[in-house]
């Protein structure tokens, strides 16, 4: 199997989903040199491999900027983090996690750690800023970015990052009872 973060191509003809990186049949194709296409293993229908074509990547980004394409997970590498790894087995219904982006401005929140997808380097950095489980933070605003106050420090975090920080509960500040 390829990298779990590698998005799959969904064949426009038959709907079969496949990983272009694992498409070994390409190796035996006489036209493979410089080829920027990939064939569906089920029906043979050709799709553009946007990882190989700069122009296709550009056009894809252009279209995806103006037209939202939620159904097509196959976007260029820059958007990989936003795509869903379809070649994993379907996950069981996920429990909705409360995160910092869900905290209304002006409220306080008790932190509960980080979502699993957050890279360890970022986690360590956030902890160093004081974002540690069981600590209380004061959410000052949510737009254009999330601004929080932790101790005597104000931090601005992009919504996507704030959405990776789990919150145990939202409520009036009573930090002393919890620490």
């Amino acid at each position: 199997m390829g990298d779990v973060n590698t998005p799959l191509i969904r064949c426009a003809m038959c709907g079969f989903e496949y990983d272009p990186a694992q498409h070994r049949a390409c190796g035996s194709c006489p036209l493979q040199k410089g080829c920027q296409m990939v064939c569906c293993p089920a029906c043979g229908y050709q799709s553009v491999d946007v990882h190989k074509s700069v122009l296709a990547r550009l056009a894809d980004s252009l279209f995806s900027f103006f037209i939202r394409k939620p159904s097509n997970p196959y976007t260029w590498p820059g958007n990989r983090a936003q795509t869903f790894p379809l070649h994993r087995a379907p996950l069981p219904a996920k429990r909705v996690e409360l995160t910092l982006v869900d905290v209304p401005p002006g409220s306080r929140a008790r932190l509960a750690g980080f979502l699993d997808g957050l890279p360890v380097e970022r986690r360590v950095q956030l902890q160093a800023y004081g974002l540690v489980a069981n600590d209380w933070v004061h959410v000052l605003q949510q737009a254009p970015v999330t601004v929080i106050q932790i101790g005597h420090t104000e931090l601005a975090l992009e919504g996507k990052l704030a959405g990776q920080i789990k919150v145990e509960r939202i409520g009036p500040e009573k930090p002393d009872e919890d620490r």
Partner: protein
Amino acid sequence: MHCHSASQPAQIDPNGSIALVGNPNVGKSVIFQRLTGQQVAIANYPGTTVELARGAARQLPGTLLMDTPGVITFPPHSQDEQVTARVLLYEPLKGLLQVGDAKNLRRTLLLTVQLAELGLPLVLALNMMDEAEARGVILNQPVLVERLAIQVVATTATRGLGLAELTAALGSACPPAFRLAYPAEIEAAIAGLGACWSVGELEETPVAPRALALMALASDQVAEAWLRERLTSAAYEEFLDVRNTLQLSFVEPLQAVIQTTRLEYVDRVAAEVIQAAGLGRQGISARLGRLTTHPAWGTLILLSVLYALYWFVGVFGAGTLVGLLENDLFGNLINPAVVNLVNRVVPYQIVADLLVGEYGLWTMGMTYAFALILPIVATFFLAFGVMEDSGYLPRLAALSNRLFVFLGLNGKAVLPMVLGLGCVTMATLTTRVLESKRERLLVTLLLALAVPCSAQLGVVMGMLAGVSLAATLIWAGVVFAVLLVVGWLSAQLLPGERSLLLVELPPLRLPVFSNVLLKTLARVEWYLKEVVPLFLAGTALLFALDRTGLLQAVIRAGEPLVSGWLGLPPEASAAFLIGFMRRDFGATGLFVMQTQGLLNPQQVVVAMVTITLFIPCIASVMVIARERNWRTALSMVALILPLAFLVGGLLYRGLAWIGWGT
């Protein structure tokens, strides 16, 4: 807590330096300046120090101090944090001075633990004590000293408080008797690595082997690179095996396990030391600070700040002050006297012409530098100094994040971009605060293409202010559109992921006038040192071309491009020619053409757009080559030059089509 004997470093160089280390924006540079008497750039935002500053400590004979970029924690995340990590491993050090924010003790202590593990003599300066006290923070300092086994000094560096005690502590600092116990598996790995690495291999760093092992186990790239350079490939492979095997003992990555152990210790110490945590920021400063990041109010405040900047630099600096200096002082008093004197003293006409002729070193080079550029640069740096000391700039990062997300960056990119309005060369260095190579490259390109430096901005503003507000808006709109299009396209083409915004917002403070003034003077001096030789060289080049008749040839050669494509008078070729040296020098040539009535409003706008997008100055190209490589620098020049003329020509046709400014 587990305190045992000190972790002795491999080698402490008695002639080595003392490095100032600490979180960003805690006053390291102020303390450095107070202890050395040396002026360094200080501002109210993280990332001001991107290069190392060194200076002799006035009260500690024979001791060199080094000011390092701020670091949140190790392993380092950005390029400037890596500079600090490299200092610890590569520089001969005899001690460390950690500067910490007394209000944020937990964050300070997390770094203290890591520094104490290095085994070097360490002193902790708990700085900004006045702010901490004003907010009701009470710390039990004796307990802190006892727990960390290092000297701790309370300071308020901006007012010089506690610095005598700090100097005394530095003079008598010893390696800390500090040892934090990690999980047994990690301790075993550290012991194993220490036994494997021979003493000879580690002698080149002052850092204790235990700390080095911890850094490497936590995947610190600087430590890994250091080990790769010194260990045999077999020994390095063995280390990787040890780390991989150790990782199997933990669910969490090793970096997280090590950090958790440190955080637990810090929490225990902080609970004992913090007697009162104090209240968060209140009052007008806090409210105003929040307004500056508010989506609507923040935008209004930003527009007001931009208008104030336009008025102060463009109208007052480039209009009133330049008028006074150029016409009244240089035009009526200094230049006639100098011309008179040279003509009387110098017997050779060619030499006299070189000095005071049409392309004279004095009448053109020095007059441009002092009468036109100096007032503009000085007013800009003054306004900029007020902005950066007030702590407004990081708030711009929060406010502008969405725009930079569109450009494949995050709001942190606004810091080098705004600094670029001061000096593109300096700002190119500041791209080190960005986290990835991709982001640094993107911002460098945008700086080189579409961010005019203060001198050029002032000249542009002065020229456009003399036409109309509509001219200014057209110029700003076109340059901004080019920045957006090129930025967006580059972001799509450059592979890699965008990092998410995480930036600390320092409190809004009233700028200290003396600091702003000193900084403005230092920057003006630096600027003149850089600009005057280039202005003189450019003038000499023009003089030589004029004398040999080549200038007319250049003007004729440039005519199809300058007159045919851009619709400007042929004489503008000379301005673009010297624009290769500095964009602002080229802009100044166009400014003089405007004052002589050679340009109509349409031509002013086209010329200003083209020269703004023109290649950056020689110094910037050199810095881009140094920070990236020559291939990148030359590729940027090859992209920017035709693009500037393309946009200028299209604008000329667009304006001519709608009939504006003819």
